């Protein structure tokens, strides 16, 4: 185990001593729970409409696809006018775009980022490699099916998909959200053990907290 991940007692400059355990997240010591829909159908509909019109994307370029995000964020394609914007932290985002292949090393980070996002949250798989491995189908270091590790709401074909295809994806995503079918976060909570088992199968050194959000 890496030095900085070990449990240790730290003495601050003011003489105060405290214990640190980097592998434990103090704020969440239980698996995620399912978020029930609003009691009133009409309220849930309004919620979903609001959610669909404010897609905030986590700015984490996990693979090649990240390069086509730039044009979307800038004047020519201007995704902002469709209610889509990029956020620097998972805490503020509700859509995680897995932009292409995920190496196991990135998968580990992607899982933490995903778990830190607030419900309801959505995942879009971008490009062939999230669907069935793409051109890295025989690589020893990339996962082949994204839906084994994270619940995916939508896939966009291409290698890599163009900004216009991404915009089409956003439109489709909005429809799914409005229809109340974007239940990825709840799916993740319901099948938490299954997802964890899959994740641990490919991440051989699991040196991070079991749950984090």
């Amino acid at each position, binding site marked *: 185990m890496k030095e900085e991940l070990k449990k240790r007692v730290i003495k601050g400059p003011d003489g105060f001593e405290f214990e640190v355990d980097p592998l434990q997240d103090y704020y969440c010591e239980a698996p995620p729970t399912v978020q029930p829909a609003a009691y009133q159908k009409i309220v849930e509909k309004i919620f979903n409409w609001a959610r669909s019109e404010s897609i905030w994307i986590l700015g984490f370029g996990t693979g090649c696809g990240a390069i086509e995000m730039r044009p979307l964020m800038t004047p020519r*394609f201007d995704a902002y006018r469709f209610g889509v914007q990029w956020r620097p932290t998972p805490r503020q985002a509700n859509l995680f775009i897995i932009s292409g292949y995920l190496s196991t090393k990135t998968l580990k980070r992607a899982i933490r980022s995903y778990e830190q996002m607030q419900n309801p949250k959505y995942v879009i*798989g971008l490009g062939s490699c999230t669907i*069935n491995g793409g051109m890295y189908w025989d690589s020893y270091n990339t996962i082949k099916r994204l839906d084994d590790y994270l619940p995916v709401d939508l896939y966009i074909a*291409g290698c890599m998909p163009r900004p216009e*295809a991404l915009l089409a994806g956003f439109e489709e995503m909005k429809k799914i959200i409005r229809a109340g079918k974007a239940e990825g976060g709840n799916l993740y909570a319901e099948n938490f053990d299954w997802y964890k088992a899959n994740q641990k199968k490919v991440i051989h050194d699991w040196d991070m907290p079991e749950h984090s959000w």
Partner: protein
Amino acid sequence: MSIRDVLSPFTAWKYLFRDPVTITDPLNERPGAARYRGFHQNDVQACIGCGTCETICQNAAIDMVPVEEILTESGDSGLRPRIDYGRCCWCALCVDICMTGSLTMSNEYKWVESDPDAFRFIPGVDKKHWDDAELGYRRPEGHRLTPARRVEMHELEPETRIGSFAEIVDGYSVADGLLEAERCVACGLCVATCPTHMSIPDYIAAVRDGDYERGLALLYETNPFSEVCGRVCTHKCETACAVQHEGEPVAIRWLKRHITDQVPYERYREIVGDPAPATGKRVAIIGAGPAGLTTAYDLARKGHEVVVHEERENPGGMPRYGIPEYRLPYDMIDRDVDLIRSLGVKIHCNSRVGTDVTMDQLQQEYDAVLLSIGLHLGRSTRIPGSEHQQVTKAVDLLRAITDGEEIEAPRQVVVIGGGNVAMDIARSMARLQKQQHGEVNLTVTALEDFAHFLADPEEVKECGEEGIEILDARGPQGIMLDENENLIGLKTWHVVSIFDEQGRFAPSYDESDEQIHQGDMVIEAIGQMTDVSLLSEELTEKLEWNRGRLAVDVDGRTSESWLWAAGDCVKGPDVVHAVADGHRAANSIDSYLKEKTV
């Protein structure tokens, strides 16, 4: 740092007054460029399902799958590519390599789906909205990843070859063979088409590797007449070759010959290997042609004792007695036959069944009997005057030439027929005319027009080079005789159609277009039939027949459990079909003999 550095960034304010660069409707306003590599299109009618796209795809994105509405036929596997967009990287190598040019790419690029398994489709079969897109990536003109042109085969010049019966084709040099072998894309359509399923891509790969002995072993695994087939095979494989669609088919037949040319004959026996231990079973075969000897070869390798009865002086059957020497030298037949003999097969020549030995004897002495008696009787046109003595049949003439009989070539000859036999006899007679009279004067009249010609195109071409006149769509109507009953020519009418609406043979003629072809001799080369007189009357009665041919099951077995029939006499004339038939009969006989032991 100056005041300018503080003020100059404010120039950015001018952007307030510029027109926006934003695309108003990015979803509809931006079709892909004219050569954009978007989603796949496939012209399923042009596609032949050769699977070369699957071979070149480095992402294993393409599967070949059977498609209901596409029928398997010669040169079309009936499969079509299914592309997995969970793998594809849109590199378009599949488009570049496509043998028919049927696979292309549209300029459509938007496909969004919740179901990850939906990104799998058969272009052209599973309807997509981009099927009719006009723009998109097409293989640029002249951009080829495989050589399209065949390596030219050196042949004797027409002037040289017409004077003798020397073999015309030189055979490839090692360098040429390598270049030609390079062109194969190893799709295997030829394997399926070849009646005896020779492992063509494998032996072509052996040529590429320069491992001719491996190649020879592969040849003799499926075809003991490789020397013969390497020269005169009807090469159905080449008509199925995927390379022909945008180029010329791989010269599979010449490559087969190339392998046999490269391996010294002394090595053959060792490469073929020793037969299995003797089983004590005995099989008699009637007729030492390709079918009979193939069966003999297979059975001998399996350890059975085989005796072959051959009516004529030499074994080899139709390849020896029907095919002229300039196409297939006799010693090449001897090489294949000797190889079969070396496996322990006994061949009794000049032994006619029915005369020298009877069927009953064979039935009693042997565990199984195979009839492979070929088609050695020529058919007649039965037109008025066809019984004239100067009207002969091509098979008889060809046999006489092989037997070395003195033949006086008439000065002017007319041949009836448009198949390869017609070409063979025409070219043989042309050689005799050249030798005896110094000039060729020969007309071939064929029922078919050139668009539906029966003979190989190269035969037709070479006939032309040798000064033989070929007239297509001429139907023979009568032999012209002068007042002294001497033959002076043939009368023909123009053929309008050969088959009637039901597809039956019923030629119709345009009587106004009549021609007289002058000649001292007319040769009929319109087909052959079997001489079944060797069978006893009792046996003929007992056996089942099908339109004058022996009826056999799929394995070549007749209605009598001890008797099989194979080759031309049941399947019609073709060397490689005969070989395939021989294998089938051998397998069937072998399993019958095994059952008998148990």
